């Protein structure tokens, strides 16, 4: 579904990614892992076109999207949940969903579908998104990605800074999406979650993919050393 080859990018003169290659097959959940600052978010931002790729290609569903703008990628079916439970703080929850849905030219039912996955949002529709708790904002962020009816979802640390009870809900949602066959590219710092969710993983270090493997491999000591202190 998504194929990344030899991707290089960075900020200004600072190069962060040095030739990253990665595959997300149909219905697969790939978890990108690594410590802070190894380039996980940069990778996702480059995949989504927020950062320009200095070298390498991003292919989605057989189409080279490397030169496309972010909104064009979204319209092709790449849903994105960026890091840090981002939302439009002064829009209501409903407007947050609507504005995304409309931009992606999806029918209103998409909204209901997304809310089915996150029923906790239903009573909050009129609230200003900025006034939600971090966990609620994260659910909103995922719901916003879903109303575009993506054919693949890219998630950046969806559980970061979220209270445990909601982490479970988010995990459950991801599992359900995965079970429904949606391909997912997930950046996750927490090993336990990755262990439970991922089909395969890739570990980044210093802007390179240093390990790949199945979820089972994550139990290995050398893999864990790359993630913890």
């Amino acid at each position, binding site marked *: 579904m998504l194929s990344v080859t030899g991707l290089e990018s*960075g*900020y*200004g*003169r*600072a*190069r*962060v990614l040095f030739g990253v290659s990665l595959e997300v097959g149909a219905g697969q959940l790939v978890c990108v892992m690594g*410590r*802070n*600052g*190894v380039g996980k978010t940069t990778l996702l931002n480059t995949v989504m076109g927020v950062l320009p790729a200095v070298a390498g290609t991003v292919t989605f569903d057989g189409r080279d999207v490397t030169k496309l703008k972010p909104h064009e990628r979204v319209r092709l079916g790449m849903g994105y949940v960026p*890091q*840090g439970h981002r939302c439009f703080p002064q829009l209501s929850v409903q407007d947050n969903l609507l504005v995304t849905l409309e931009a992606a030219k999806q029918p209103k039912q998409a909204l209901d579908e997304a809310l089915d996955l996150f029923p906790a949002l239903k009573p909050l529709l009129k609230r200003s998104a*900025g006034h939600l708790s*971090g966990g609620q904002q994260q659910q909103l962020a995922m719901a916003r990605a879903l109303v575009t009816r993506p054919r693949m979802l890219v998630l950046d*640390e969806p559980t*970061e*800074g979220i209270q*445990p009870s909601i*982490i479970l809900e988010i995990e459950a949602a991801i599992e359900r999406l995965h079970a429904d066959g949606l391909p997912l590219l997930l950046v996750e*710092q*927490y*090993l*336990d*979650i990755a*262990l*439970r969710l991922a089909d395969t993983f890739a570990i980044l270090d*210093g802007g390179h993919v240093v390990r790949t493997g199945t979820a089972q491999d994550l*139990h290995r*000591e050398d893999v*864990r*050393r790359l*993630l*913890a*202190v």
Partner: protein
Amino acid sequence: MLELRDVQVVFDGFRALDGVNLTVPDGELRFLIGPNGAGKTTLIDVITGLTRPVAGSVRFAGHDLVGRKEHQIVRLGVGRTFQTSVVFEELTVIENLDLAAGFRRPLWTLARRRRGVSEAVAEALARTGLEDLAERSAGVLSHGQRQWLEIGMLLAQRPRLLLLDEPVAGMSKDERERTGELLTRIADDHTVVVVEHDMEFLRRHASTVTVLHEGRVLVEGSVDQVSADPRVQEVYLGRKASDAVGHRP
């Protein structure tokens, strides 16, 4: 020397720092780590006057820092770098350093042209190894060289306390190594606080590590102590890491 007591910072209802206590004694090289959003950069912002805490005190060498302007805090001997390096591209390396060394000069003496290289600048050049690039404009430097220049500018200020925010981010392996050596040497005669994620770097260079999590100090200790602490494992690997894995490195 640097002492933070019960520092709280709130942004729009979000508690970025929630009662941080931190003491950094003279001459220490302290590493500050923690997952994203733990409040590391906010902590540095509070010390340097960029962010005002809603409660708590920040004292440095007998001075209360809260409420002072940024440049006044610098004049007390506190220097910092930023995550993204901001050197002045139109100035040469030496001019950047000279500027940093110059804040103690009275304003009117600045009207003179710079002649020669002052001791502080020469020292900063030598320490950062940028001598060969001294006359080049900072705009042409590589990312790593810019970071060194930034550290050099800090040295030229002759501060007593250096606060470095992710100094090796975006650097190559060789550059990291050089930066590490540089830091160790600087730490010989300065107090240094470094925010850094790079664990390899941390293991090699850190003596004391403070782990921040969700706006609080979680643990403080040596690298080994900290890596062995289950709470640290938990915040890095996930809350139920110990249950799920049942094994600690």
